[in-house]
C-alpha cells in the first residue's frame, strides 16, 4: 500500500514536471510569437556571416533570451536592419515580399518550430551572459533583452534560394 502511494506520487511528479516544462515553453512562445523584436548590426563579422544584436520583449527575461536566436533569424529573413555604427551598412531582408511568409507558411512553420532548422544558421556570439545595459525593464511587467548572435547569412540565403523563396543573383541567366 505504501509502495503504491509512492508510485502514484512519483508519476504525478513526473507528469507535473513535464506539464510545467511544456507550459513554460508555450509561455515563451506566447510572449514572442508576434515577432516583436528589434534587430541591429553589431559590427562586421567574418565573410558569410552577420553579427547582430536582437532585442526581444517579454514579461519574463528568460523567455526573451531563449527566443533571441529565433527572432534574429526571422529578422534577417524578413526585416533586415538599418546599419549604423561600427562600420555597419544597411541590410535589406532576404525575403523582400511580405506575402512570402504567408505563401510559404508550411515551410516557415517547420523552420521556426522549437528545435527547428533555424538553429543551423545561428549561434550565440557571447558566452550566454547578458551585459547589464542589455537587460532593460521597459514597463512594470515587461523586459527588453539584447542578445548578440552570429547568423550564417550566406548559408541561410542559399537555403531560401533552394526553396524558391528568394531569388539568387544568377537566377534567370
Amino acid at each position, binding site marked *: 500500500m505504501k509502495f503504491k502511494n509512492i508510485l502514484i506520487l512519483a508519476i504525478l511528479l513526473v507528469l507535473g514536471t513535464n506539464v510545467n516544462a511544456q507550459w513554460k515553453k508555450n509561455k515563451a512562445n506566447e510572449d514572442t510569437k508576434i515577432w516583436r523584436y528589434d534587430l541591429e548590426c553589431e559590427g562586421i563579422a567574418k565573410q*558569410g556571416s552577420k553579427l547582430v544584436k536582437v532585442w526581444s520583449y517579454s514579461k519574463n527575461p528568460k523567455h526573451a533570451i531563449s527566443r533571441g536566436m529565433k527572432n534574429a533569424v526571422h529578422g534577417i529573413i524578413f526585416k533586415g536592419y538599418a546599419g549604423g555604427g561600427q*562600420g555597419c*551598412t*544597411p*541590410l*535589406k531582408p532576404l525575403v523582400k515580399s511580405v506575402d512570402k511568409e504567408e505563401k510559404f507558411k508550411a515551410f516557415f512553420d517547420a523552420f521556426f518550430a522549437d528545435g527547428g532548422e533555424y538553429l543551423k544558421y545561428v549561434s550565440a556570439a557571447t558566452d550566454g551572459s547578458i551585459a547589464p545595459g542589455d537587460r532593460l525593464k521597459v514597463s512594470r511587467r515587461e523586459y527588453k533583452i539584447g542578445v548578440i548572435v552570429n547568423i550564417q547569412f550566406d548559408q541561410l540565403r542559399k537555403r531560401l534560394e533552394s526553396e524558391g523563396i528568394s531569388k539568387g*543573383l*544568377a537566377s*534567370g*541567366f
Partner: protein
Amino acid sequence: MKKILQLGVSITFLLISVTVFSQAKKPTLMVVPSDVWCVKNGYIMTFNDQGTIVKIPDYKKALQENSELLQVISHINGMMAERGFPLKNMESAIKTLNSNAAEDNLRTSKNSGAGINESPIDAFKKVAKADIIIQLTWTVNKTGPKKSVTFNLQGLDSYTDKQVATAVGTGAPSFSAELPVLLSEAVLAHMDTFTESLQTHFDDMFENGREIIVRIQTWDDWDGDLETEYDDGELGDIIEDWLADNTVKGRFSTTDITESMALFEQVRIPLYNEKNRAIDARRYTRELSKFLKSEPYNIPNKLVMKGLGRATIILGGK
C-alpha cells in the same frame, strides 16, 4: 512500346534544349579601379592631345604595383563567385589581350605568307571590356591617429552609361587596424548592399526587358536619308514605328534624329524571341536590319554591334 520510348526520349531532349536556350544572356562584370583612384595614386599615362594634356588610367601598372588593389579585387571577385556570378578578372583580361596581340603579330599564312587582317576599328576595340563595369574607389581618411576607409563601388552599364548598382560608405574609424584589414572590412560591409542593388537591376531587366541603345547612321555615298518618303511616311518615322511595335511595352526614347542619323536610347528589348532564344542588341537589331533591307524599302545596310547592349545600323551599303 518502342515508339513510346522514342517519343519519350524526343520529348526529354526537347525539354532540355528549351531549358538551355531559354536562359537570358548573362552580362559580364569586371572590377576596374576608378579614374580618380588611378590619378590619386599615380597610375596614369599622360599625353598631349593637340595642346590639351590628357590623363588616362594605366590599369596594367596599377595591377602590377598595388597589392591593396589586388586584394580588394580578389575579395570582391570571391564574394561574387560565391553568389554564382563569377567576375571577369581585369588582370587576366589585359594579359590575354597582350599575348593575343603578340601572337597575331607573329602569325603568317602557310600558303601566302599573309598576316592577320585587322582594321583600325578592330584594333581600337581590343581593350579589356565587360557589359557591366564595377568601378572601385577608396580613400583613407586620417583624423589624428585614427584611420578609416571611405569605399565606393559603382556598377556602370557599359552601353547605356547608366549606374545600375551602388554601395558607398565610410567604415568605422580605428586606432590600430592596418589598411588591408580596413579594406577587407569595407568589402565585407558593402558587398551585400551592392549585390542587392544589382539584383534590383536584374529584376527590372527580367520584368521590363534589357535596355539597349540603337543608332542609325548613313554612309555618305548613299543617295537616300532618314527623311526619304515612302507610302507609310518618312523613313525616320517608319523606324520609330518598328521600334514601338517591337519593344517591351513600346518603351524607347528618341534622343536625337536628323536626316543623316538617329539615336534611340532606353530601348527595352525582350530577353527572348518567339523561338524562346535569348537575344541581345545585335540579334534584336538584325530584325530591324532585315526589315529595312526587304520590300518596299530595299535599303542595304551594315549592322555593327558593341557588346550585349549597343548596336548601330549604317544605311546605304555594307
